[in-house]
């Protein structure tokens, strides 16, 4: 398990020997003929207030880890602890409070927002579920506050997703994640679909919000330059395993694994 950089800070999330296998079905009766080891015995910790970067190519299993944490995917084996609670074994009802604490931002800002809902409805939906006592007027007030926080305007409230650019949509996705006052956010390739100029704005916004709200991030990406910039600690994944884990500086200055060197050499040089 990687050591934490600052031994005084407490791990907020602890992943222990996580395995996620997907069955390969075959034959007339679609029985299991094999399995894909998407995540194969992965352990790491994320300390409170820090950013851990998870980097690897498509198919390396990095998004599956993010999905396992918020339980969109069931682990085959292993345990995920949030604080001192093993959240990977909880019943759905017992897990519900953690859905509030742990939020996710997705890669594709075009497909992750419901095109039929207004921005108020998209962001307010989470409030309706987690704060059922909140009045509609209070919800509008809260959503307005959130739009302001992510750099959008009050009059965007009643517009629909198609009226926004990719970068603005990603801001809406961030506002939706922030609505329920989370502690931990899984950022699943939040900038991969954006122009480099917009990427810089969104990365800076995430860093500002982290500073202001004390958020903890698991930042998933394939571009080591972005990961190195935003992360305190970096995990490099290949074929379902973590092949290297080190501080952001050490990954760049002294990469140990061939695969890490391959990722470093793929970063465009100016």
């Amino acid at each position: 398990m990687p050591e934490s950089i600052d031994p005084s800070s407490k791990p907020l999330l602890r992943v222990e020997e996580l395995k996620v296998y997907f069955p390969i079905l075959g034959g007339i009766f679609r029985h299991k003929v094999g399995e894909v080891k998407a995540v194969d015995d992965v352990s790491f910790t994320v300390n409170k207030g820090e950013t851990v970067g998870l980097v690897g190519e498509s198919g390396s299993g990095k998004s599956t880890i993010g999905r396992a944490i918020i339980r969109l995917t069931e682990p085959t084996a292993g345990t995920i602890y949030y604080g001192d609670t093993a959240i990977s074994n909880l019943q759905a009802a017992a897990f519900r409070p953690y859905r509030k604490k742990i939020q996710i931002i997705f890669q594709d800002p075009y497909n992750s927002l419901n095109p039929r809902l207004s921005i108020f409805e998209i962001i307010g939906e989470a409030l309706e579920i987690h704060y059922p006592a909140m009045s509609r007027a209070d919800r509008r007030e809260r959503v307005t506050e959130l739009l302001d926080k992510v750099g959008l305007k009050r009059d965007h409230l009643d517009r629909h997703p198609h009226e926004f650019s990719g970068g603005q949509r990603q801001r809406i996705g961030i506002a939706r994640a922030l609505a329920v006052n989370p502690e931990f956010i899984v950022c699943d390739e939040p900038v991969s679909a954006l122009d480099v100029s917009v990427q810089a704005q969104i990365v800076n916004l995430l860093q500002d919000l982290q500073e202001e709200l004390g958020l903890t991030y698991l930042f998933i990406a394939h571009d080591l330059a972005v990961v190195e910039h935003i992360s305190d600690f970096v995990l490099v994944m290949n074929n379902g395993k973590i092949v290297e884990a080190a501080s952001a500086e050490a990954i760049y200055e002294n990469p140990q694994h061939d695969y890490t060197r391959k990722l470093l050499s793929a970063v465009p040089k100016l």
Partner: protein
Amino acid sequence: MSTPLLRVENLGIHFGPLNDPVKAVDGISFGMEAGETLAVVGESGSGKSVTALALTRLLASPPARIVSGRIEFEGSDTLLLSESELQALRGKQIAYIFQEPGSSLNPVFTIGYQIREAIELHRPEVDDVTAEIIRALDTVGIREPAKRLDDYPHQLSGGMQQRVMIAMALACQPRLLVADEPTTALDVTIQKQIMDLLKELKRTSNMAIMLITHNFGLVSDFADRVAVMFRGRIVETGPTAEILRNPQHAYTRALIDCVPKLGQKQHRLKVIDYAGID
């Protein structure tokens, strides 16, 4: 002096209402020599893709209106060509590869069939089309190409699909390849492979390449020249090394600065100060 391969003069393309048009391309001029590589760099909405599509009149009209200018390709104005002359130009003289290879390929035909279609249309003189397809796939680094002819697009990864698109473009031996954000949908490692392939093609063929990108990181060891587009205008153009070393326009400088650099940890990334540019 020889005629340039491509000369665009005062090109203007508008969208929307006549009395209050959106000037997607606002009077731009540039040229390309045979075999030259030009990178057109700009953000979404700067007009770079609209310019590229206009070269062979691929823009749907309406809504697009070409309101001014000339586009000369090998001496003839493509804006004056008939539809059948345009058909001969598209693919055969000017070929394109686009951002999402997955949606550029037809999912219900094999890749062999799709490349064959292009060769039979544009190079009827070729006798052994299959050999030509295999040669094209081999050029783009697809291993054992003879075995891949019957593959459908979904059986290939994104990087392989983009290689197939490039093979299809090359099979017609175009004079100009327009690569419109060819690596944006791909992982950085696959991006490097595709850029290495384009570099190899630049070295070994006499095809001119227009690379359209939002990422200055891709142009440094690829393009001979760079044109920077901002709000429908070319704000700066020149040799790549010179622009990277000594950008003159504030927008060019900002676009170079916002690329995250390895090993230079900054507190925050630099963002473009649009108010300061105007």
